[in-house]
């Protein structure tokens, strides 16, 4: 499958006096997994709806593979909305084929692909059941399949893991990675920061209708480093602390008898080597690790500090 790129340029959207999106631009590389993060009400869903052509922007443009958004694009997009729902009284097999046909797939092809999915997830006996007979987890799985059945080139998943137990969440995560391997461009909108760190290559953080962060995950984490290290050692805490002197700051420490876990900040341009040189004579080092802020921390930090847009 040839992968498609997505480019959102200066999109703004207002609803009845409330500004949902304010000059937002993002760029998604072909075949990558892109995380769309932000607190509730930030504007993520509005942006997703615009990409899906459910609503249109007040200003700005959206390009898929450098082509301006047109109705044909809906056929290559798979969308899993945050608020899930299916026709309750319709049989599952029938319904999924119907939804795939809405996306331009032929009935026969949808039928055979669907069979494949049912076998993969081992849910063949559910073909003739009605949606209302399913448990919530089952319904979520079904919904996921219906999103990807027509083999979309651009997949937009809004909170795909919510409502899944850990086993099924893992299942979905594997499917997402599998799809990425096949070349699908994936946009993941989520609060689940662990999955962001695990699967996303690039992210954008939207807050209060503006984009406040964009970049690759590693870049961003690196950007938010604050030169913190975690050192575990056995020995005398006081001696250790003295050794730090003015070049390093002891942020906090936890002690269990002779074992101490300290968080140390590098000061004055000193690096890890200097820290080790300074402390080696005074303690038996067990482990040293750089503390890189998690996406969760960065999210909370950025959002609560109301950082202005980049």
């Amino acid at each position, binding site marked *: 499958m040839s992968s498609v790129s997505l480019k959102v340029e200066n999109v703004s959207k207002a609803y*009845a006096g409330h500004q949902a999106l304010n000059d937002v631009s993002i760029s998604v590389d072909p075949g990558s997994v892109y995380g769309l993060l932000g607190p509730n009400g930030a504007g993520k869903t509005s942006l997703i*709806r615009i990409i*899906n*052509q*459910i*609503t*249109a922007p*007040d200003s700005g443009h959206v390009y898929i593979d450098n082509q301006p958004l047109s*109705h044909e694009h*809906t*056929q290559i*997009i798979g*969308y899993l*909305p945050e*608020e*899930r*729902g*299916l*026709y*309750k009284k319709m049989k599952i097999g029938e319904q999924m084929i119907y*939804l795939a046909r*809405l*996306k331009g797939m032929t009935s026969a092809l949808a039928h055979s692909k669907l069979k494949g999915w049912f076998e993969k997830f081992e849910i063949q006996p559910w073909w003739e059941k009605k949606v209302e007979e399913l448990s919530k987890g089952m319904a979520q799985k079904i919904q996921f399949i*219906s*999103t990807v059945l027509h083999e979309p080139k651009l997949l937009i998943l809004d909170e795909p893991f919510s409502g899944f137990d850990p086993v099924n969440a893992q299942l979905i995560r594997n499917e997402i990675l599998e799809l990425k391997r096949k070349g699908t461009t994936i946009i993941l909108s989520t609060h689940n920061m662990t999955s962001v760190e695990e699967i996303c290559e690039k992210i954008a953080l939207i807050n209060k209708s503006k984009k406040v962060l964009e970049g690759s995950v590693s870049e961003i984490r690196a950007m938010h480093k604050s030169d913190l290290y975690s050192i575990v050692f056995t020995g005398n805490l006081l001696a250790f602390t003295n050794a730090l002197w003015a070049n390093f700051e002891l942020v906090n420490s936890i002690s269990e008898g002779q074992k101490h876990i300290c968080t140390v900040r590098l000061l004055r341009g000193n690096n890890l080597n200097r820290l080790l040189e300074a402390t080696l004579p005074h303690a038996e080092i067990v482990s040293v690790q750089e503390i890189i802020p998690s996406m969760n921390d960065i999210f909370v930090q950025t959002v609560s500090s109301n950082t202005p847009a980049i």
Partner: protein
Amino acid sequence: MTFLAPVLFAGLMAAAIWVSTSDTDKHHVLVVDYAAIITAYDSTLNKHYCRIPGKFQSTETITYDFRTSRPDDQDFIDGPYTLMVEFDEGISENLAGHLIYKKLPSIQVAQSITRELESTLEMIKVTEELEMDYEKYKRLRMPISLVQKDIQNQDEASTKQEQAGVGMVFSIIIFFFIFLYSAQVMRGVIEEKTNRILEIIVSSVKPFELMMGKIIGIGLVGLTQFFMWIGLSFVIMLIGQVVFESGALNSATVQGMNTGVPEGMMQPDFYAALAQNEVFNVILRINWPLMIGLFLFYFIGGYMLYGALFAAIGAAVDNETDTQQFMTPVMLPLFFSYFVAIMSVQNPEGQASTIFSLVPFTAPPVMMVRIAMGFDSGTIWQLILSIVLLIGAIVATTWFAGKVYRVGILMYGKKPSYKELWKWVFYKG
């Protein structure tokens, strides 16, 4: 439900008829004629009887006994009589008597007894006071029938009035159809909204397409159901006719019904009337190809008009309880048109009938009455205008509904006011 409904309906009709025929109370009436106006005494039988032959005849369901004095109240209560009629010589002047009952009689029974007394007294007056031959007297009454004729068409007796009545049947059908199925559209829209599948569907198709699909789809279901009902009702009616003619309606029951049913409402007469030429003429006079064709047009047109509005209502709210505030103004013209249609039967060429057959929201039921009557060269333009206006209204309403639908289906949690809805029309896509 499609198959069940006509069967249930026929069943209900049969049950109703059965109940009315088997439920006639038996009455034993005591007529207390203080002044012996209508009563005579038979010394051999040692009892009183009605001296006018043919009146107050006892039947299976009602018996009459006569006296010139009234029993004690307790005797009456304990006795076999269910009703007591009493009057004295003043009845000719004040035209009043009493009907004393143990258990309230049905209106039909009371009326039947009253009529019996009326006609008996009348006969006495005519034959004894006026000394006239009763048959001659009956001929005094001259029920005149004025045959209606259109100046444009004086050769034929006009059956326009009756034709209008037939049109009314179609009006009723249209009214119910629109009422039932437009509401269905609304419910369908709300269902899609509440189970959230809307967002996925709208990511593949345009909201307008979805709305039209819903309206047309439900309309087709309605049409199918409708034709099935017609077919099944026909079959059941045919079966019913056979059953009735074969003896379920025997003479005793008919007589029982006769005493219990007021004049003009006797069911067996309906079949008799059908056999009469007059009604046949009416049926021949109606331009059936035009009638059926236009019936379908107004049927579908009226449904599309109201269906679009109902789709908009469904999109604007989150659940069925919120629909009330919007449904009332939408349903008002529909109900109103039903009443105008009834009025049009009484006054088919009146102004109200003309005006409201042109207004798109009231046209379908009202037009049915007018089409049954037929149009001449002078008024055919009204039919054409009505059709054009209806089509125009459908286009406008669908456009308007589409705008409201587009915004409404994604809006949750708000209960919009009319002003808000109006703003939605102008939201960009």
